[in-house]
């Protein structure tokens, strides 16, 4: 089944075209990474899928026209983890994760037992049990990132959108979070679309990469098709070497040329 189908999706913000006729299909269970330089339109593409910006073109989520689905129904299918989530410091991790159940509740509804269970399961899967009664402002950056992921999991959406899930994390935490996402993708049958700055990690974890530049899709495919020196140099303006590390994909190394 196709989890996500974009058909000439365009977004203009303040008169500027930020996303220019992006067409692509993501199969259910896949992990697709959006890569590209700053301002390429990666985050905007995720926001369009989450229904947070008006767009032109057609966008289908699990075979349904996303534009015709009510906001709440869309939120049951699509969960977004923003790059810098707004963290209300004075509530507990568990209270925060429970907010993920919102699309499953009526306007004045409160969480029932099933909702509590869903939140507790998400907390457990992200190893947050010891933190569940701690206030969010007492957590480290990595723990907060896991709390936000837990909230998205509690949402029980089949399509998970991650905007720079590793941006503020150290190398170990980056691997830890991506391993968790990959594990959950398997155990929960999730489809993952993430934006990523670290090309090496993108190549190691995603099934396919989409390279965006200036709002346009300029390359798409598996890692060894997209992570090439000419493409990266052209679109990132960066001097790099791409090293084949046997068994662990391609490693993109920035290099400094002697003058």
């Amino acid at each position: 089944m196709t989890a996500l189908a974009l058909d000439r999706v365009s977004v203009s913000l303040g008169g500027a075209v930020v996303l220019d006729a992006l067409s692509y299909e993501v199969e259910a269970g896949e992990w697709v990474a959006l890569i590209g330089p700053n301002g390429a339109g990666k985050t905007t593409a995720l926001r369009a899928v989450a229904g947070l910006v008006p767009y032109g073109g057609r966008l289908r989520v699990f075979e349904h026209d996303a534009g015709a689905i009510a906001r709440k129904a869309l939120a049951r299918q699509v969960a977004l983890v923003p790059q810098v989530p707004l963290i209300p410091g004075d509530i507990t991790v568990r209270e925060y994760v429970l907010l993920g159940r919102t699309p499953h509740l009526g306007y004045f509804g409160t969480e029932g037992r099933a909702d509590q269970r869903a939140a507790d399961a998400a907390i457990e899967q992200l190893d947050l049990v010891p933190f569940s009664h701690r206030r969010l402002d007492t957590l480290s950056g990595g723990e907060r990132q896991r709390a936000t992921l837990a909230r998205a999991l509690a949402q029980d959406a089949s399509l998970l959108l991650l905007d720079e899930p590793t941006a503020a994390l150290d190398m170990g935490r980056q691997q830890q979070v991506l391993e968790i996402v990959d594990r959950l993708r398997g155990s929960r049958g999730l489809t993952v679309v993430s934006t990523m700055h670290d090309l090496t990690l993108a190549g190691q974890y995603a099934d396919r990469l989409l390279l965006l530049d200036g709002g346009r899709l300029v390359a798409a495919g598996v890692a060894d098709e997209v992570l090439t020196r000419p493409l990266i140099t052209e679109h990132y303006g960066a001097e790099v070497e791409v090293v084949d590390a046997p068994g662990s994909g391609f490693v993109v190394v920035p290099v400094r040329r002697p003058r």
Partner: protein
Amino acid sequence: MRRGEGRIWLPLAFVFLAAAMLTGVLVGPVHLGAVSVVHATFAHVFGLHSPLSGADDAILWELRLPRVILGALVGGTLAAAGASYQGVFRNPLADPYLLGAAAGAGLGATVVVAYAPGSGLTGDLLPVSAFIGAAVAVVLAYALGRSAGAAAGPAALVLAGVTIASFLTALETFVQQQHVDTVQEVYSWLLGRLATTGWREVGIVLPYAVVAWVIILMHRRLLDVLAVGDEEAASLGVNVARVRLFVVVAATIATAAAVAVAGLIAFVGIIVPHTIRLLVGGSYRLLLPLSVIVGAGFLVFADVIARTVLAPQELPIGVVTAFFGAPFFAVVLRTTRRTA
């Protein structure tokens, strides 16, 4: 906060409110015993024979009890409205007067005092005019803020409120300048007071307060969702603009009703919710009901102080809430910061 811990706070708050109300009806120039006061109150409610003498019974039923009930209604409303505003605007400094309610009510009151002399502080015209002024101010601020576009978010609304408030305050000052003799009367209203004439004021506020409390409390979970920001709340399927509108309308109408009968009582809408936040955490599920109960008790206590420290003179209650509220809040702030 642990799950079980929440259960202790609500009973505690009710004990605080009950203590405040009992103090409120017992303290005064005429001594009424605690037992007979409770007995007489139940007698009135259930249509039985009161154990108090005629005069004592009138003091309780016509003077003290209406005033205590009014204080509870106004305090609970201001605290709940303050907490709601802080939630929908994600602004810790938001108070019930943020969107121009105070300026509008002030203008409404000033106009009555200046142009309808004689109706004064006890007449029917002033509360009506203050109520209309407050409501119109907030409607104007909301319309102006929305015209900046939903994308501008809560900041646009706050700025619109500041704009409307400045404009209405300028008008108010102008009217006062033209009628200098009215300044003292307007000023005493601006500082807030809980003077009652029987149950009239209670009757004015009660319906607005109860409806507003119910609407606000029904939104308590959605206010938690709004705490993660407009965009994330929208990605969780919430219509942010609608939640904000409902909560603002409910909080504003109740505030306008409270202002109309009690004047501008400062600080309750800020310190009560923040004290509760510091003690029990920021989730609105517990914060909102606690704000109603503790706000009610706080204002009843403040009124006891207002009418006793300089008896037989009365201190404006707004002075009491700030004078005793500020140091108390400073202590709470210091002690909880250390443990957090």
